[in-house]
């Protein structure tokens, strides 16, 4: 494992504190505004609680991602990268542009190069937000005033597009992968059949939760339906990884 430097841990600490401060500032601004417009405090509390519970399970693979990357970059760099902007699938492809995962010996210039590539490649989104997002948002506000139906169509289409893009990729990749795991993308490291079963279980559990909320009027379940769904589906996936049929 490459050497870690104290200053990189200091940067990790600074960036973690920065993210938490920024999130708290936005959180308090939103709560304050909610109170000003008379938004039900129960809705605000429910949003906080459900989002906190929801975020726990999907955050764990991010830590696992740090564990995977630490073999090639040390511990501090993956911590820094996954705290701001980074997403595991992207980071692994980015750092491997210099084939660091295949190198017999990882040198410090190699780490510096991988880190530079990872940094440069991901800056365009925030730079866009800094320079152009306000203008785009103003156009969206104008569109909402003049043609709300079109804006709703755009929003719905984008959400539908995310679902279409991800679901089609997951399903087709899973069929082509089958029991053969491995590949550059983390998604390709999955067993295709387990992926499909996980997807199916997630849909079934959500459908059951929906039915319980509607038929038995279990309102409390609304806050926990998605976290429960994710937990059950991931628990099943974990158990299936030990099944001889998927070895």
């Amino acid at each position, binding site marked *: 494992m490459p050497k870690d430097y104290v200053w990189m841990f200091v940067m990790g600490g600074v*960036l973690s504190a*920065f*993210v*938490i401060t*920024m999130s708290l*500032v*936005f*959180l308090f601004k*939103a709560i304050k505004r909610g109170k000003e*417009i008379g*938004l039900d405090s129960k*809705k*605000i509390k429910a949003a906080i609680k*459900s989002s906190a519970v*929801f975020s726990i399970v*999907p955050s764990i693979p*991010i*830590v696992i*991602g740090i564990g995977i990357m630490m073999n090639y970059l040390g511990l501090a*760099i993956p911590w820094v990268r996954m*705290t*701001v*902007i980074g997403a595991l*699938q992207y980071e692994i492809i980015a750092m491997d*542009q*210099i084939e660091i995962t295949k190198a017999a010996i990882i040198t*410090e210039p190699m780490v*510096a190069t991988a*880190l530079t590539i990872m*940094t440069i490649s991901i*800056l365009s989104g*925030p*730079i866009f*937000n800094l320079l152009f*997002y306000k203008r785009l948002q103003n156009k969206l*506000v104008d569109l*909402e005033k003049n043609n709300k139906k079109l804006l709703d169509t*755009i929003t*719905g*289409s*984008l959400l*539908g*597009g*995310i*679902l*279409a*893009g*991800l679901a*089609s990729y*997951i399903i*087709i*990749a899973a069929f082509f992968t089958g029991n053969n795991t491995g590949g550059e993308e983390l998604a390709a*490291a999955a067993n295709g059949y*387990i992926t499909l079963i996980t997807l199916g279980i997630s849909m079934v559990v*959500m459908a059951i939760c*929906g039915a319980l909320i509607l038929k038995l009027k279990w309102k409390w379940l609304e*806050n926990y339906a*998605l976290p429960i769904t*994710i937990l059950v589906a*991931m628990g099943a996936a974990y158990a299936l990884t030990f099944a001889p049929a998927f070895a």
Partner: protein
Amino acid sequence: MKKSNTLSFTDNLHRSGRIFTAVCLVLMCLVPVIYCLSAGVTPMWGSIGMAFSFILTYVAIGLIEAVSYAPILGVGGQYLSFLTGNISNLRLPCAINAQNIAKTKQGSEEQEIISTIAIAVSGIVTTIIIGIGIIPLAIWGADIVEVLKPVSPYVIPAIFGGLGLVLIARYLKLTAIPFAIMLVIALITFLLGKDLGQATMLSLGMGVSLISGFITYKIDRKKTEKAAK
């Protein structure tokens, strides 16, 4: 509900968002500089040049994502998400989940507030979990990863199975056609032995869905105009 002053609230979010984004960009760029100074090395510029096409692709994907997510995440959510990352697998599902629970109206200020709260809380929770998570990694090294590693690739199907049902129920008309088209695209690319990857498929999906949604919108409008006549 009292009358809202949307403009000043969103302007306020823009101002804070831009300040935080500017500071964060500086901090992000400092990371490789500090590493190089600490290790006493310089990056291999030739290798960075060789990665130019990759960098260009991700710069383009970053721009497409920033434009595409703008109508969905809301002002606060947009600034927060693009600095905390993990948008499609964590921030966006978290915001949609909170919006569903609060039953907010599309495009309302209520929705903006709930999305901002959800994404801010999500960012805090993730940062804390990562901070706690690196302690066992520092003590036991990558050995601990081996125990949990097998389950990592299944997070996205676990999220999008359940969330997909919710989205399909809400946007069935807008989702069906792009989903069918994307299935065909994915099938063809895999048959040709090409794996486009999640990021590209996601951007492509949004593009296809926008075109399909716009055509549906036009057809609906023509029908409404005809009916009015």
